[in-house]
């Protein structure tokens, strides 16, 4: 049974190593590359589109994660209350997360259509705007639109995981706090939050990671347009490597994501763990 484990490791680490190596070569589709040192990276640093994609990725990740966390926590708190049909609600809430992202992205694409958008229709009828919003034609509109779609997809995951965490908190703690005169906000701040911190750390690490490397939503809704303003590093590396054929450059771009991911993991994991420890040590 040990071979299974070993096989696994080789099977998984080899592509990762190969990916890094490819980043240092000038490989093309169907042709082996030669070592070119850090040429790819030098080129990418000087490339305005690559820099823009880095900015987009950071912007996308930060904004989407903040919203996903806030809304997800709120939804989890709502679902944790005394509700009829609780398990039904919980099941329904998770739907956006389980259907194929590529397919729900198509629904968003249609909802963001410049001419027939239902969102524009409603806003128009309500009298907020006087002409249809060009959701995907304008760089900032497009960025915010894809972020909204990403939040829509990510909130259920955060909410359900946090709900699982909330359910482990004993209600007697809240009763004790209420008897001591704690307001609802204080109960949330000093009972819920400290007890939830470890799971928040893990959930948000996951969320940040998958947002940072998101591909499907962007590819389906905008393909990186307009004017590359929604290109993330993942979509750009796909475009360079597969559509453009220069595997080396795409691999270099993908490799560039790794340090950011490691930083995100270390930051949220150790940062929040230490926080939990400090709070525990205060008592």
């Amino acid at each position, binding site marked *: *049974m*040990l071979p299974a*484990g070993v*096989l*696994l*490791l080789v*099977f998984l*680490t080899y*592509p*990762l190593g*190969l*990916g890094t190596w*490819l980043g240092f070569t000038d490989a093309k589709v169907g042709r082996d590359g030669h070592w070119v040192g850090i040429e790819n990276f030098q080129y990418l640093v000087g490339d305005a589109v690559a820099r823009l994609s880095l900015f987009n990725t950071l912007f996308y990740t930060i904004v989407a994660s903040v919203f996903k966390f806030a*809304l997800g926590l709120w*939804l989890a708190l709502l679902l944790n*209350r*005394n509700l009829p049909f*609780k*398990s039904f*609600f*919980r*099941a*329904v*809430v*998770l*739907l956006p997360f389980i*259907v*194929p*992202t*590529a*397919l729900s992205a198509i*629904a*968003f694409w*249609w909802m963001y259509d410049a001419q*027939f958008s*239902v969102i524009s*229709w409603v806003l128009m009828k309500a009298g907020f705007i006087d002409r249809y919003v060009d959701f995907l034609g304008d760089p900032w509109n497009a960025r915010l639109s894809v972020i909204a779609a990403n939040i*829509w997809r990510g909130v*259920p995951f955060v909410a*359900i*995981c946090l709900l*699982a965490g909330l*359910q482990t908190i004993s*209600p007697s703690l809240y*009763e004790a706090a*209420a008897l001591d005169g704690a307001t609802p906000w204080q109960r949330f701040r000093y009972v819920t939050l400290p007890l939830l911190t470890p*799971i928040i750390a*893990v959930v948000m690490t996951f969320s940040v*990671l998958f947002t940072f*490397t998101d*591909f*499907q939503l962007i*590819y389906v809704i905008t393909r990186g347009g307009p004017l590359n303003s929604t290109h993330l590093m993942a979509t750009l*590396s*796909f475009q360079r490597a*597969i559509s453009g054929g220069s*595997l080396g450059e*795409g*691999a270099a771009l993908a490799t560039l994501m790794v340090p950011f*991911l490691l930083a995100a993991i270390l930051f949220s994991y150790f940062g929040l763990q230490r926080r939990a420890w400090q709070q525990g040590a205060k008592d």
Partner: protein
Amino acid sequence: MKNDDVQAQGMGYLESVPRRVVTLYLPLGVFLFVLLFPFYWMGTTSLKPNAELLSRAGNPFWVAAPTLEHFRHLVFETPYPDWMWNTVIVSVVSTFFSLAASVFAAYAIERLRFRGSRQVGLCIFLAYLVPPSILFIPLAAIVYKLAIFDTRWALILTYPTFLIPFCTWLLMGYFRTIPYELEECALIDGATRWQILVKIILPLAVPGLISAGIFAFTLSWNEFIYALTFVSSSEVKTVPVGVVTELVEGDVYHWGALMAGALLGSLPVAVMYSFFVEYYVSGMTGAVKE
């Protein structure tokens, strides 16, 4: 969920009805509306005739003359059934393959005490965190080399790279909850490792296996980037990729057919999910805890 009745009492009685409506039902209603609206929109769009889709008159939330034309077009005039079939084959085969491999790996890590088993476990977890959008380029190179580019095998063999770490991690958690004593008894009675695994561990881990299986199936059904990269001819595409790449022709978007395709493609996972919600949720939250 079992002790809901006890917990449900809580401090709920302290709240007045209007306050409850404003702080609980109203926000919850808004959340549900926003989360479910895209599905409603998919459904109505797929039933609207083209003329109705492309007019701004009338109420877009209602279908004036429902039609199944888009579904007919999809099933009989596009390779959609092929894509569906491919997706089913690829998902089922890769799920079974990954589950089998994961059972051995998880059991080995959890129960065969060898040096560094904890480190291996940690590596498995880290492997799960490596996203496909980093791996697809080197994997594409490997797929070309193995000459399985543009075949179903390209997908069946690459999906386990993200399924195995996940399933192994999940099953490790399950195996840990099975008491050691059971195994020791079996060992004393002369059972081999293989017998222990098959006759004792696996029956006890059935809920874990179901969780992992459901989750792996959904993950491989939803997989997009590998399927987009490793496959190029229409006959071997999966549903998500097929809908996105082939139903969009030039500047004319067949919104009705697109939505019908999206709806049909989401249906199998949604149905699977609705049968196994509890397993799914426990799988998801189990993977996050630890």
